[in-house]
């Protein structure tokens, strides 16, 4: 099953490599990885999407917790949560295709954020599966480049990750 694991880590050199190393060393999967600073400058937040049995996920969280730099770990999938990912996609857009792509982008509530006479660059935010659906909806022959940010997530309601 797919899980989204959020990790607060000390903003120390090498902390990220310890986490990524742990996944490769113990044969765990990383589907996406997102790292950024938080409002607390001593901490970074890492969001990892992974999949595995409950037992594997339990081991992942235990081993993450064992790292000295890791301050907190939460498996967002344990309760309600919201996930978002940013997609930037550059497509060839000439002639009738321009209207068609604009229409699909509108349907998915994306925005065209850069335009040339032959190219659109589209921005779309949503869950991973929404972004997948969008990429399937447009003609793959037109796609020049795809950039995805990796999943970010946050728990619903009161539940929150902080120290």
């Amino acid at each position, binding site marked *: 099953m797919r899980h989204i694991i959020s990790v607060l880590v*000390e903003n120390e*050199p*090498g902390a990220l*490599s*310890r986490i990524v*190393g742990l996944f490769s*060393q113990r044969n765990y999967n990383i589907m996406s990885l997102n790292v950024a600073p938080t409002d607390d400058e001593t901490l970074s937040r890492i969001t990892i999407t992974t999949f595995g049995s409950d*037992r594997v996920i*339990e*081991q992942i969280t*235990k*081993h993450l*917790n*064992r*790292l*000295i*730099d*890791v*301050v907190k770990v939460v498996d967002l999938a344990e309760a309600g949560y919201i996930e978002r990912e940013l997609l930037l996609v550059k497509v060839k857009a000439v002639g009738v295709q321009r209207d068609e792509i604009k229409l699909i982008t509108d349907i998915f509530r994306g925005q065209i954020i850069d335009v040339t006479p032959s190219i659109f660059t589209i921005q779309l935010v949503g869950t991973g599966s929404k972004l997948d659906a969008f990429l399937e909806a447009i003609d793959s022959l037109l796609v020049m480049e795809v950039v995805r940010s990796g999943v970010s997530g946050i728990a619903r309601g009161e539940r929150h990750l902080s*120290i």
Partner: protein
Amino acid sequence: MELLSGGDMLLRALQEEGVEHIFGYPGGSALHIYDAIFRQDKIQHILVRHEQAATHAADGYTRSSGKPGVVLVTSGPGATNAITGIATAYTDSIPMVVLSGQVPAERVGEDAFQETDMIGVSRPIVKHSFIVRRADEIPAIIKKAFHIATTGRPGPVVIDIPKNTTAPTEQFPYSYPEKVNLRAYNPSVKGNAKQIKKAVELLLQAKRPVIYAGGGVILGEASDELVEMATLLNYPVANTLMGLGSHPATDKQNLGMLGMHGTVEANTAMHHSDLIFAVGVRFDDRVTNTVSKFCPNATIVHVDIDPATISKIVEAHVPVVGDVKDVLTEMLVQIKASSVKPDETALADWWRQLNEWRERYGLQVTPRYRTGGDKLMPQEVVQMLYKVTEGDAYVSSDVGQHQMFAAQYYLFDKPRRWLNSGGLGTMGYGFPAAMGAQFAHRDANVVCVTGEGSIQMCIQELSTCMQYNLPVKIICLNNSALGMVKQWQDMHYEGRYSEILYEDSLPDFVKLVEAYGHVGIKVTKREELEEKMRECFSLKDRLVFMDVDVDPSEHVYPMQIAPGAMRDMWVSRTERT
């Protein structure tokens, strides 16, 4: 406030941690540190002959004394040579602090001379690591390193020290922190009260209990509590390879070692048990045999300080995360206070059964190896060693058949007496580990049981032993082949001996050790074994190398049959359980 250079701060901080010995080897990036060593006299530096030996020596010092060992190496090859010893310590959870020199910070990343990314190379085999960015960070980093290495589940910590941070020309105010500030590191010590209560209830209800005790009991200094509990309950104890000595091997409640080359009685008891009380163990694959067939009727209570060890291989029905000593102490209080007492009738039946197995298969009951033949058997050499040292030596081993014979036939009654690379299985560990142990126990008998294969992996340390007058005794069970590999080639490859023979290229070990200034003794016959062994140990202040020719065809038995359950074992070449 006193002004000190980074190098001097490092030495001062180590002194504050009570460090008495550093095992190391100098080089360019560590020169400032070596100068600081020269200018102080509180810490003794031991110059080894290879960095791998420095780490094993520090490890042997630690295992035999409980005090964290310290290693100092230079950058590049000095650091990478230390890797095997760091991995050895990591796998067996041995606390150790490894200081590695690094090229100056402004050179890092430029592929400078003797530059290697030590933090990166060591990352998967350390509990934690630090890079010194500024000299004034050194005291706090040392404080943190020792705290991390020695608390929770112990392990090695690497500190990478760029040369510029130890320069004698730059001085900073020195003060040693009293407290460690690590918000993300709080290993649990006390077990959860509810879980402990449940564990005690289950323990007291058991009809066929086994206490499965491992290295965690020794690391956690909990042998007294373990012995008290086993005695109070009259429950049998089986030890892992790493746990030998945590419960006295000569105690009648001790079933011996379990696992691949464990005793039949220990493995069979585990298999038929209805309650396994697992203390400071990790259900290693060399213990469990096939996991799906592991102890089919047992409820498993697992006490360990590392939550990641619990239910990693075998699901624990009642996990207790905590320091083994604290948890056992609390359990003892509750057992004594409980109105429920162990089921004596069931226990009497269980002991009858256990004693029957022991009588039939026990290694100490009658010799389980060929006796009276022309050739000396490796087992009888270990038994003679036990007799001559009166069971009171510190014994290290390398890896292979000799290691298993030592584990089976030297009966360890005390913790911290048996030093071996249980998890990583590092050949070359034994001799330098014995050196380290001899530094911790200058007047004790320290013995390295080894083979002619393993000993050659760190044999250069004969020179170190001469320099520091270390009277280590080396007992080389010489079977002229890489015995354990040979055994597997006999059993699984129809005797195709691939690359295990030396074709008459072995050195004359007696002459070799004499060249280093030590004493060599050759033994080829049974009649001379005892006399020569006694002569060896009568030379109190000399290193003695006993090169003992043993039967080259001998296999280690018992041996678990894979795939299979714990109880499925070869008892000899032809007989199985």
